[in-house]
């Protein structure tokens, strides 16, 4: 980390477009970014694209109107972010991508956790919990979002290594806790033999745990994704077997750091992979304070 160049940072203005704040994960990402901005003495304006790629383009456009010195984009969709990034580049404003990459345009730095890798790790974690055999259900995120796509793909790759694990059902629950609850409730009816659940985010995992009731953590192992505070609590209490923790605060912090440096004309690494880590009961304490 470090101060990133010392004096004269006071007037520096940065813009950050977050894909959505309707999710605690991104709230943490924002919090990390804001804390770091305060720490570095720069002004950070955060906007919420409400999961709408075109609104995000608008917001980046507006940042250019405001002459921001650098822009952090947390893409709603990796492909769709390219025109926004290009627009910023045209007026020579450097862009840092956070949490998700941008395909089809150059950014100064990508600070991200790898969702495909995360999906694979989730498969491994779940397999371990299940003794490498059994039926699993997958709760999918909002159809068509890159996070759902990538995690689903990673999980499928990962689970392929375990011939005795069968994916019995895949149903969308839109990254939403209530839907996670309802869909899981229904899946228990049609697939009573399910012993493992992979939810593409923690919100759905927490809903699924509600649906499973006392069976969660005992007969049925649930693995989530994100590492939100509620999920960490669930991991500690044993109802959630594991979650693939992203480190949203760290992502936000590093993105701001990088943005400040590129704004001052320094060069930065093309990509920083913020590791995703599997959180289980054993190591949950390491995450709870971060």
């Amino acid at each position, binding site marked *: 980390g470090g101060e990133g160049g010392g004096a004269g940072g006071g007037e520096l203005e940065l813009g950050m477009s977050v894909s959505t*704040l*309707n*999710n*605690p994960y991104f*709230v943490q990402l*924002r919090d990390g970014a804001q804390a770091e901005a305060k720490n570095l003495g720069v002004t950070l304006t955060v906007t919420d694209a409400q999961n709408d790629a075109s609104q995000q383009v608008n917001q980046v456009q507006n940042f250019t109107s405001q002459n921001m010195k650098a822009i952090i984009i947390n893409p709603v969709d990796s492909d769709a972010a390219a025109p926004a990034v290009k627009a910023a580049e045209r007026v020579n404003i450097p862009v840092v991508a956070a949490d998700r990459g941008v395909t089809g345009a150059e950014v100064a730095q990508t600070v991200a956790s790898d969702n495909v890798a995360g999906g694979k790790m989730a498969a491994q974690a779940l397999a371990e919990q299940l003794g490498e055999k059994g039926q699993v259900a997958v709760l*999918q995120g909002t*159809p068509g979002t890159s996070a759902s796509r990538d995690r689903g793909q990673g999980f499928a790759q990962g689970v392929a290594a375990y011939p005795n694990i069968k994916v019995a*059902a*895949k*149903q*969308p629950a839109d990254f*939403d*806790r*209530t839907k996670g*609850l*309802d*869909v899981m*409730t*229904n*899946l228990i*009816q*049609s697939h009573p033999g399910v012993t493992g659940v992979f939810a593409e985010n923690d919100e759905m995992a*927490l*809903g699924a745990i*509600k649906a499973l009731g006392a069976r969660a953590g005992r007969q049925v192992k649930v693995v989530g994704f994100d590492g939100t*505070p*509620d999920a960490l609590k669930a991991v500690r209490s044993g109802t959630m077997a594991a979650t693939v923790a992203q480190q949203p605060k760290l992502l936000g912090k590093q993105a701001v750091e990088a943005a400040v440096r590129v704004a001052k004309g320094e060069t930065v690494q093309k990509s920083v992979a913020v590791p995703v880590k599997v959180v289980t009961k054993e190591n949950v304490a390491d995450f709870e304070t971060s």
Partner: protein
Amino acid sequence: MSADVLPRRSPAAAWLAENGAVVALVVLVVALSLLSGDFLSLTNLLNVGVQAAVTAILAFGSTFVIVTGGIDLSVGSVAALSAISLAWTATSAGLPWPLATLVSLAVGIACGLVSAALIAYGKLPPFIATLAMLGIARGLALVVSEGSPIAMPDAVSELGGTIGAYLPIPLIVMVVMGVIAAVILNRTYPGRAMYAIGGNQEAARLSGIKVDRQLLITYALSGGFAAVAGIVLASRLASAQPQAAAGYELDAIAAVVIGGASLSGGKGRALGTLVGALILAVLRNGLNLLSVSAFWQQVVIGVVIALAVLVDTLRRRGTN
């Protein structure tokens, strides 16, 4: 009076004719029972009831509004704000839970009153007034919660559970709210006034109905019902979420309209609304049981909603 009165239909037939959505629901249930062996179990049917509860309660509230010829787009947001208010006042402000629950209801009602004031005194179209409230309530829910879920007090979370081993409380709450809605609509002055206003606002006014005041009551009821829905929703999750129930307004309105109400007002019944909400819940439940793929689900839901109402309108034309 002419003697040429045709033979009257039996009461059951008359009831069916007015509640045509019932036919669609029955068809759906039969079809799903045949397609999926898991569907027709007691547990699953109770599940469906629970899953319908939040939408149904929101929809009962929307029924009042739609009967007056209005629309309430804010119910999902108001539900979230009310739940957040409960959890926040109980947790951060340390209020005892019964008080926190009252606060939550008051917040819901207040939201309804603000919308109604904009409509009655500001002469805003209900669509705009409640669209504004949709944004305001959702924003406030996010502001209060700082974007993160807040745990619900345990006592309130019981609401998400069961009585004994089986009987789910959300189901009971749904039925109770449905009965309240039916009684209000059928038996009380405000309820009857809603039909008059929705049927012909000017005629209602010239008949001495205080339209403005009745609209306040109507939207306050919608807000109050939304608060109850929000509390039930949060209890099921044991956590109040600022983004909860986003987009539920369309489901609620759809339930009311599938249940036979008209968006131009003057028509609608609580029982119809319940059937509408059940159709939506049965549909989603069934698609899960049948493991329909994520992408196709939306297509199927769309087609079935259209068919369900089509059955009704075609049948109605048949009898006429």
